[in-house]
């Protein structure tokens, strides 16, 4: 059902705040970046020169850019897969809890309220090689932890920091999805001789697939674009290039390296990726299998 407004003006008036926010904080910067991507600017911002597609050509011939892409993929899929698996496990357990359900669920939702940069700082402290409790504990277990030197460890740290925050969000969706699976299906499967594990993998999990797919896209988008704060607070892209994911590289090349043209070109590429992911998302959600 659609509600129609008597006047033509009212809907636009109601949309205005949203449109303004979008215009000021997205459309305008996006346009700026798009423009910038075709210019080469000197380090002091005093002069600039139209260079056509040069910034993009430089980008796509730069091995560091491909390395950053690979790093981003590893990082993003790790965040999405770990975040979703842990959240699903927690949701399955929460679904069975009867007493204290609300407390448990509320506790699990809290991390989502923590800002990404704060989450980064939190984990940075916990894993600090000289005084972080987790780092010290790992050392006592015979594992030398130093994410300032070890690229693999740095990646693990940023993945943990970025995943931790996202678990709450995933958890909420999985829990809602689990609660929507009719009890009688599980009972029918139990009578049909499927044990708890088999029931989960052959009945519950397939029925959760729309939720899972939705969360996969959301988590990838989050890891791709929303993790600047986490990286900045923990590893700053290092050591070397080991955690320099695409969003962070935009910042680093632009504001640290002062190569605004390349930075703008990278932003444009990122925007294109978001666009593609959004389209995929909507396509699938529209076509999503409807179970009755």
């Amino acid at each position, binding site marked *: 059902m659609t509600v129609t407004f008597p006047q033509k003006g009212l809907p636009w008036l109601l949309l205005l705040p949203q449109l303004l926010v979008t215009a000021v904080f997205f459309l305008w910067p996006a346009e700026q970046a798009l423009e910038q991507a075709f210019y080469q600017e000197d380090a002091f911002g005093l002069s600039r020169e139209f260079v056509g597609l040069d910034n993009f050509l430089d980008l796509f011939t730069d091995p560091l850019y491909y390395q950053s892409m690979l790093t981003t993929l590893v990082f993003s899929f790790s965040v999405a897969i770990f975040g979703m698996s842990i959240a699903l496990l927690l949701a399955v357990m929460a679904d069975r809890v009867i007493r204290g359900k609300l407390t448990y669920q509320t506790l699990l939702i809290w991390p989502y309220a923590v800002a990404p940069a704060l989450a980064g700082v939190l984990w940075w402290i916990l894993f600090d090689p000289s005084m972080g409790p987790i780092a010290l504990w790992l050392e006592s277990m015979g594992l030398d932890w130093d994410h300032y030197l070890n690229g693999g460890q740095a990646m693990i740290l940023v993945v943990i920091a970025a995943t931790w925050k996202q678990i709450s969000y995933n958890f909420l969706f999985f829990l809602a999805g689990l609660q929507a699976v009719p009890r009688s299906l599980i009972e029918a499967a139990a009578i049909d001789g499927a044990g708890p594990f088999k029931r989960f993998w052959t009945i519950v999990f397939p029925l959760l697939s729309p939720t899972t797919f939705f969360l996969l896209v959301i988590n990838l988008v989050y890891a791709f674009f929303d993790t600047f704060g986490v990286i900045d607070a923990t590893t700053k892209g290092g050591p070397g290039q080991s955690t320099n994911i695409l969003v962070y590289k935009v910042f680093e090349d632009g504001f640290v390296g002062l190569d605004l043209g390349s930075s703008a070109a990278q932003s444009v590429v990122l925007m294109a990726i978001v666009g593609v992911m959004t389209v995929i998302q909507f396509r699938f959600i529209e076509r999503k*299998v409807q179970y009755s």
Partner: protein
Amino acid sequence: MTDVILENVGKTYPNGYHAIPSVDLSIEEGEFIVLVGPSGCGKSTLLRMVAGLESITQGELRIRDERMNDKEPAERDIAMVFQNYALYPHMTVYNNMAYGLKNRGVGKTDIEEKVSNVADMLGLTELLQRKPGQLSGGQRQRVAMGRAMVRDPKVFLFDEPLSNLDAKLRVQMRIEIRQLQRKLGTTTLYVTHDQVEAMTLADRLVVLNKGKAEQIGTPMDLYDKPATPFVASFIGSPSMNLLPANLVEQGIKLSETLILPLSHAHRGGVVWGIRPEHLEVSDEQNADFALRVQAVESLGAETLIHGALEDQSGRITSLVIRLSGPHLPEIDSLIWLIAPTKHWHVFDAITQQRL
């Protein structure tokens, strides 16, 4: 051979609600037992205890002489048809039916054969590759039955399987279920709150009231000799006329002026009952009493007349009579009736037992 035995089976839910005080029932092999009763009387609870979906908190359940209380649903060799069918929405009809067999490690060719046999029997062959979402209500119902049948279980359990179908389809499926069950000879426990379904399907009926079996017997037993006013009013449509009365020396005293002669040793408050179809129209001389017509329902083949039994004291009691064929008495006219003694049902008002 006795197939399923419930001995003093009771259920208290974790929240302390005592849903079933105690039920005793033994079911013969191949028997079709219908559990019937009003909403909330514990029918589903009892069925789910047999299925293993609810724990049995008291008494013992045995299937083929084996204690089942602590067995998982899968180990009881039962199959259940749910009210909402509970078909797996992401699987095809074929896979819905094959799922239980696969889980039990039946070979692929065996599965194919069994599924196609059952699909044949139920007319589902054309639909095997469809998903439940692409089926009509009646077809889903059949798939649910098929899923129960392929495994050839010891016991079928049905929980109101027809309640989501329209009236016509319900009648058709009812007949089909009965025929299939006869053919397969599988012991069946069937829950319904529809008394017509109960009467037509059952070898024996269990009338449940607040978690207690009020009476267990064949449909005709329950119709002819209901043990309590509850059973009397539950079985038969329209319900039996039940009137409070007193048993005195002269007979059943319905009011100060109306006494129906009967010699019985019992004295005191009773409930006197007669079915609408057993009241006979007569003339003023021979009649036992008169009915003032209040409403007439013509159903074509039969006519239901609702009226009031009046006496001088002004007390009014409602009665229904059921006559075959069309009748059109005027509203407010009097109809003279005979209540043949052989059709009376008399219950003690306090113990509610049949006298």
